């Protein structure tokens, strides 16, 4: 089977003056269509850089990102990003924020009425249709993130990129949003890559967990398959043996074999 998304021997280094700092080294990964993959690692290991490379917001130093066998090196709506701090435009309402994306990406293929239906369908998907005329400042952090997800989904992306989407949220809101993301993933089957530093979140949501070694020159240490049937329910899983085993494997990787040493910087 051909890989849907392929990260082919990717290196990334940043040059500042004469100093070159190597951030990522020899990243190799293939992701199938419909797969949910989490990338986990200690802070500073370059996982956000990796997401930016896939999104095309940063250019690779060597190697290539291949989506359906075509190289991508610039950003585009087929790789929609949900940013950690939502980055909704504060002067637009929830509806207008999504409309900006929809009218740009689907403006040629859909009529005005179809676009309206499409925006409302995506707002319904994240249960935010009731707040369509609110501005970002008037809704809570969790709701903003929901709108951010709706905006990304509304672009009809081939791959959905989530950059620590729940990092800034409290634990309860985070759980609600994780359930929402699982629900959306099961309904749409969207190929998803999520950056996270939360072990439970990674195990709960992913088909595979990609564990990064520490930088500099970070690379993929291990890839763990999570053989849990879907739909997954967090309460049942909290005592499930497979869940606990996966969780333990990730924790061991992060805290035994690749302990984060701050002094190393």
């Amino acid at each position: 089977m051909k890989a849907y998304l392929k990260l082919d021997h990717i290196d990334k280094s940043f040059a500042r003056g004469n100093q070159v700092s190597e951030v990522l080294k020899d990243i190799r990964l293939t992701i199938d269509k419909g797969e949910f993959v989490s990338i986990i690692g200690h802070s500073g290991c370059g996982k956000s850089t990796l997401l930016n490379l896939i999104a095309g917001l940063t250019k690779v130093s060597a190697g290539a990102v291949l989506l359906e066998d075509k190289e991508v090196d610039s950003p585009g709506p087929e790789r929609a990003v949900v940013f950690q701090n939502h980055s909704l435009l504060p002067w637009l309402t929830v509806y207008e924020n999504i409309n900006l994306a929809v009218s740009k990406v689907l403006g040629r293929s859909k009529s005005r009425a179809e676009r309206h239906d499409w925006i409302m369908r995506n707002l319904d998907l994240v249960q935010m249709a009731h707040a369509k005329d609110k501005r970002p400042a008037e809704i809570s952090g969790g709701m903003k993130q929901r709108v951010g997800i709706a905006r990304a989904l509304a672009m009809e992306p081939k791959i959905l990129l989530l950059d620590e989407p729940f990092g800034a949220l409290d634990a309860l809101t985070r759980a609600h949003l994780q359930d929402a993301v699982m629900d959306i993933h099961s309904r749409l089957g969207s190929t998803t890559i999520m950056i996270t530093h939360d072990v439970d979140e990674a195990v709960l949501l992913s088909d595979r967990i990609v564990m990064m070694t520490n930088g500099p020159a970070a690379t993929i240490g291990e890839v763990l398959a999570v053989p849990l049937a879907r739909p997954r329910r967090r309460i049942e899983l909290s005592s499930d043996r497979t869940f606990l085993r996966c969780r333990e494997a990730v924790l061991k990787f992060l805290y035994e074999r690749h302990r984060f040493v701050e002094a190393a910087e």
Partner: protein
Amino acid sequence: MSIQTIEDTTVKVFPAKPAEVIAFTAKARRRIDPIVIAGKLASALVPPAIVIALMLVVWQIACSSPTASLPPPSQVWNEAYDLIAHPFFNNGPQDIGLAWRVLISLQRVAIGFGLAAVVGVALGALVGQSIWAMRGLDPVFQILRTVPPLAWLPLSLAAFRDSSPSAIFVIFITSIWPIIINTAVGVRNIPEDYRNVSRILRLNQFEFFVKIMVPAAAPYIFTGLRIGIGLSWLAIVAAEMLTGGVGIGFFIWDAWNSSRLPDIIVALAYIGVTGFCLDRLVAAVGAFVTRGTTAK
């Protein structure tokens, strides 16, 4: 059993509470509102009224002696009464009410300032967006912006060979610098996230300018516009004194030449009030346009 009774009572009490609270606040608000508004108005209007009254009294006393070089307020009121009471009279080409003169000056300001706003925002966007445009243009702007408005007048008279476009040019060149500089700062401060959103959506340059850059930099742009409108009102009065015509600036110069000091004092009051209104107008437009922009 005991647990159940407790639950029952809490369930009964809970829904009754919010209804009461809402009714109470609504009543309380309606009762207090007019008093609050009157109180706020009084606290805003009474202190300046007292200060103005005191200033008038001091001025009256200071200028009452027959040897005083300036007229007291009573003399201003008597001699310039038709200027104060009838701002819109029109007795022929050179004998018109002060409101007409202010309007003529405002018209020049509108043209000069309008041009400065359009060109200033465009240049500011360029300087804020492109590092090379900034390196090339910023030193030039920093030098030119320190040139006093009237120093431009002889040059613009020579270039345009007419007083009216020269006055407009002086307004343009005076008010454009704060608009350029503030717009550039605003554009430079657009969060990287907004740029990333536009890159993912593949917005072209024009769409980025209209949909992201201008709204994101709007608070800065309006700061520049507000400084700019103040400067252009300063410049127009000075420029009209030299170029002539029927504006409020020339009226003052004309009054000085025919020794009508009370008229000058009335004209100063008109200029001050108009400048204040212009400033508040731009501030109000800015507050309306940028609502929601600065909130996170």
